[in-house]
């Protein structure tokens, strides 16, 4: 290996300027609603994912940017009909983030076993020196989740629970709160 990776630095409190300029207050160059992934003609169940991020003092993290990366409904990444990437900010007042997307299909693990439907997630913010990576799984996929190789590596049920988005009883809305510290600290991965 000839070169070392460029080291990370925090995205800082003004991350929106470069990533979601309209939210920073800059005039839009183009209408880019990057938190909406599902378009006309996208196959799959339309879902909404929403939640907040808590810090170790149980305060809402209101200056974060989240990015998601997911397969399409057939479990394919980067297909022509579905980009599969999105970006959202936590709201400056409420702390809430929202994605409108489709539920991904199952994808293969390295050894060919199936992975439960999931969405990869990165978190950038002031006070986070290197972005955090985690995965979001779905509460209505209990059988697939139980067989998921990555959740099996997580192991303990109380830790797995931090990675499961909870489906609303009546609407296709999943709640996924992230905890940076504390008793129910979210599991973060080093891939």
């Amino acid at each position, binding site marked *: *290996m*000839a*070169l*070392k*990776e*460029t*080291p*990370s*630095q*925090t*995205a*800082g*409190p*003004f*991350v*929106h*300027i*470069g*990533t979601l*300029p309209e939210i*920073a*207050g*800059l*005039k839009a*160059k*183009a209408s880019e609603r990057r938190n909406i992934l599902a378009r006309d003609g996208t196959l799959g169940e339309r879902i909404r994912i929403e939640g907040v991020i808590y810090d*170790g*003092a149980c*305060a809402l*993290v209101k*200056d974060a940017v989240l990015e998601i*990366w997911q*397969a399409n409904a057939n479990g394919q*990444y*980067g297909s022509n009909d579905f*980009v599969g*990437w999105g970006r959202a900010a936590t709201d*400056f007042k409420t702390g809430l983030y929202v994605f409108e997307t489709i539920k991904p299909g199952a*994808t293969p693990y*390295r050894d060919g076993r199936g*992975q439960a439907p*999931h969405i*990869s997630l*990165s978190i*950038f913010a002031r*006070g*986070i*020196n*290197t*972005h955090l990576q985690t995965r979001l799984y779905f509460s209505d996929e209990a059988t697939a989740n139980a067989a998921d190789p*990555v959740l099996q*590596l997580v192991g303990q049920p109380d830790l797995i629970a931090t990675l499961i988005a909870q489906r609303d009883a009546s609407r296709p809305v999943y709640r996924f709160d992230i905890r*940076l*510290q504390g008793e129910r*600290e979210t*599991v*973060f*991965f*080093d*891939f």
Partner: protein
Amino acid sequence: MSELTEFRPRDRNWHPAADTPAYRSTTYRAPRRSLLAVPQSIGELSGPVFGDTPLDPLGNDLIRNYATTGDAIGERIIVHGRVLDENERPIPGTLIEIWQANAGGKYRHVNDTYVAALDPNFGGCGRVISDADGRYSFRTIRPGPYPFPNEGCDWRPAHIHLSIFGHAFVQRLVTQLYFEGDPLIPRCVIVNTIKDPKAIDSLIAKLDMDAMHAFDCLAYRFDIVLRGHQATYFEDRGS
């Protein structure tokens, strides 16, 4: 099958630790549990493609891209370099986003309360796609230093934030570049979240007189290195 070749592990001792008490914002935002190491699968080895996305033709010209009445005020500079992987291969077609304060150290952001003036002709936001050789270039103004609340009042050296995607979820990188010779660099608590002086030096853009534009702007060189694949059968054969 080459797409299933794993990337080299991230050297977490080269990157900053999560909890760096001198930078106080990390105190409540650094996870307490260790990161869980997990093998890379298709979702980590793939990533979004932006190379075909039409960008604003002024996307990499921050002197003009938000200008209304004239050029942005400040020291005119070119920031340029290459995006490479750890195996010294160029990374073409990757999106690079940058953001920065204006020449007075003020960000065009609804939450920036610093007393310095806004520049009506400066937005501080740029985007570009690396070319076939991994090269990229921005024209901008040198940002000013600015104070922030930390241990009382701390000062940030002049810096530009960078966001780079690479071609895989695990290559994603957000960082900051600094400018050669800035006396605030060694005093900065955010710079010093990185322990290894060589790692810090790799974030310092170097004055590049060969790339200056005569009677127009100075130039700084900043190469970006993203994670590279582990050696593979194909690479061993030298193909």
